[in-house]
């Protein structure tokens, strides 16, 4: 077991005027997750600490936070990679994520942007069996369907952090999933909807989203493909 040092952002709207940091030390095995440390702190030392978590293996997307300055999932980071350092945990940053309590942020605005891009398939007719789709067509969405809506990309995006109106990388990934799905017949409307300065064009290729994505989605590349598709549709 290793002694792990944490500095954790604390804010209780019922009690605190200003947020502050609190220090914790916890014993952990090198192969354990930072989330295991957080749980141990909460369960054994300080039950007042609040954060979200559920699946604990990078599938549900609940425990996104800033870990040593970088947006990530606490359940995907291992103790051994932080040995001998102080781990600083903060809530997801940016105007889109007001702090509710400690590491819990309000995700309402984030999910609103997802709703905005109409993240459902619009296809006509109902065949008796499945709609056909070639493996090549299906491959186009293979990476973006990994999205777990954790919001790390939005937290990391310099544009989203400055401009609340930018639709943001997560919503664009969701839009990509339908624009490039050969079964969807709303492609033109979807692209028209994103063709404005705070839409797809808000992205100026900082690549932070791609760097932090816990599911290794090529987010920036996907956004650029949307932009290219918009341009192509205007030329034709």
């Amino acid at each position, binding site marked *: 077991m290793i002694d792990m040092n944490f500095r954790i952002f604390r804010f209780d709207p019922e009690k605190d005027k200003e947020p502050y940091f609190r220090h914790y030390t916890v014993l952990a095995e090198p192969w354990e997750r930072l989330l295991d440390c957080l749980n141990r702190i909460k*369960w054994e030392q300080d039950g007042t600490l609040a954060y979200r978590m559920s699946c*604990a293996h990078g599938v549900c997307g609940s425990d996104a936070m800033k870990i040593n300055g970088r947006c990530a999932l606490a359940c995907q980071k291992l103790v051994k990679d932080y040995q001998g350092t102080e781990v600083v945990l903060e809530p997801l940053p940016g105007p889109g994520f007001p702090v509710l309590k400690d590491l819990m942020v309000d995700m309402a605005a984030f999910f609103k942007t997802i709703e905005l891009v109409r993240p459902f398939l619009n296809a006509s007719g109902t065949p008796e069996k499945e*709609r056909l789709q070639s493996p090549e067509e299906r491959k186009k969405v293979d990476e973006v369907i990994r999205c777990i809506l954790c919001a790390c990309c939005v937290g990391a995006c310099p544009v989203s952090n400055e401009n609340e109106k930018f639709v943001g990388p997560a919503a664009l990934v969701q839009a990509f999933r339908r624009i490039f*799905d050969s079964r969807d017949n709303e492609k033109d409307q979807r692209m028209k909807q994103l063709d404005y300065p705070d839409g797809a064009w808000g992205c100026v290729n900082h690549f932070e989203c791609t760097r932090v994505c816990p599911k290794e989605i090529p987010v920036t590349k996907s956004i650029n493909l949307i932009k290219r598709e918009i341009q192509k549709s205007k030329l034709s």
Partner: protein
Amino acid sequence: MIFEHDVVIVGSGLAGLRAALEIAPVADVAVISKVFPTRSHSGAAQGGIGAALGNEEPDSWEWHMYDTVKGGDYLTDQDAAEVLATDAIRAVYELEHLGVPFSRTAEGRIAQRAFGGHTSNFGEAAVKRACYAADRTGRVILDTLYAEALKRGIKVYSEFNLMDLVLNGGAVKGVAVYELATGEIHLFKTRAVLLATGGFGKVYKVTSNCFANTGDGVYLAYRAGIPLEDMEFVQFHPTGIYGLGVLISEAARGEGGVLRNREGRRFMEEYAPTIKDLAPRDMVSRAIMTEIRQGRGIDGRDFVNLDLTHIGKDRLAEKLSDISSFARIYLGVDTATEPIPVSPTCHYMMGGIPTDVDGRVLDERNAPVPGLYAAGECACVSIHGANRLGCNSLVDLVVFGRRAGKMIVRDLEHLERKEFPETAGTDVVRQIETLKTRTKGERAAAIRGAMQQVMTDHCSVFRTERGLQDALAELEILKERYQSVCIDYRSDSFNTDLLDAIELEYLLGLAETMVRSALARKESRGAHYREDYPERDDDRWLKHTLIRRTDRGPEISYKPVTITRFQPKPRTY
């Protein structure tokens, strides 16, 4: 506050969402969930959804039904298995039409792969029946159904925890709910309540289940006097990442992966000569534990290896990318060149709230409880019998979620939203007040940890009379300790400390029903293996266990298994 809806669904996984889609066009339906819908545990399902589409090779629903019955060691109700196997095909096409991005065959059809216990021609050879989207099938179905719920404007109350069922004269009239953000207790007046709250793997120390899986609906139904069925049957998935319990899908073996012991031997050849590594989960988990007990774990330790190295880098990337990333992130293992250390992890509860094939909850006399429905892992239809086959849970959720929705729509005609008891919610207020004002006692985590250890030691893959008796005695002590459980945080907003303590009551209550049911069943069947009664005993035990809370303590009774097409036979693979 008091909310009114015709129907309240508790749980936003696939069963809850699918039911909501069915009800929304005709009645006012709301979904209550302790997590935001896309965080639901259905999203952790990896390998596939079972349906005899026959896209890759000949298949039939009769074979699927047979496999389900045999996989469940003949405790499966065969009328329910027939509904599952026949309706699975329609259900998968429906998901495709809604937009689920299934992987595809060269012809553009839904791709299918082999999975444990799924065979052709009544057990002859493994068959490709699992329809999949790489190894994130549950997640993409969850995203699709959630998007569909958005499209139809279904009201969702996220981060609302179920605290109690509200009954009047034996009929369900609504629910009492705790709002995480404010600490308020809300009452929902309804005409019908559907429980779709999932499983309770958190009873065990090592589990593939998420932290939200604390069996809220199952326990609260039990507390309200509704019996629970087949609680002794707990599925341990053979391949959890060693130590963490993170699931490595059966798809890994479906795509050709094999289990090896310390000698490098593919030991499943001895336990299941016909389908080997693709035997049902209960058999593979027992085989792994046997290898470990006999000193053939890797380096003599308590795990074996899952070898995917011969599958090839490209195929691993295409078909098993999530599990390859889990191995890399949590173990630093490259699945293309190194094996994954695995051991059984608590995965699924076959038992739960008894229902008929239309989701109606049944009381101890097998009569429907007016206004109460259940679907998904929290329910026991029973499709899965003594052991669920891989790929049969996702299909269970969408088939029986929809059927429960349809039944509710039909029943609404005679269900009314009135006679809501005035005392509703007062017990919940008292319960929370007690927890918030208690200043001395011990933390929930210590009691929970002890419970998880007891259940892991005595009520896992192998069980004995002695061990189960010990477990029962220890659970009694833990329940006593729970009477002085104490929390740190006493404020109203985002009090997850309080909810942790409340959920522990649920887990302790359910653990007791599991141990008592396991003690009573003096035979081995499916996932329930008694070392002191190693044989299946159809003469005495081909029946479902019911356990019910009474003033005299928990009472056990039994009800018959429905057998239609397939008479029980010895279960070999």
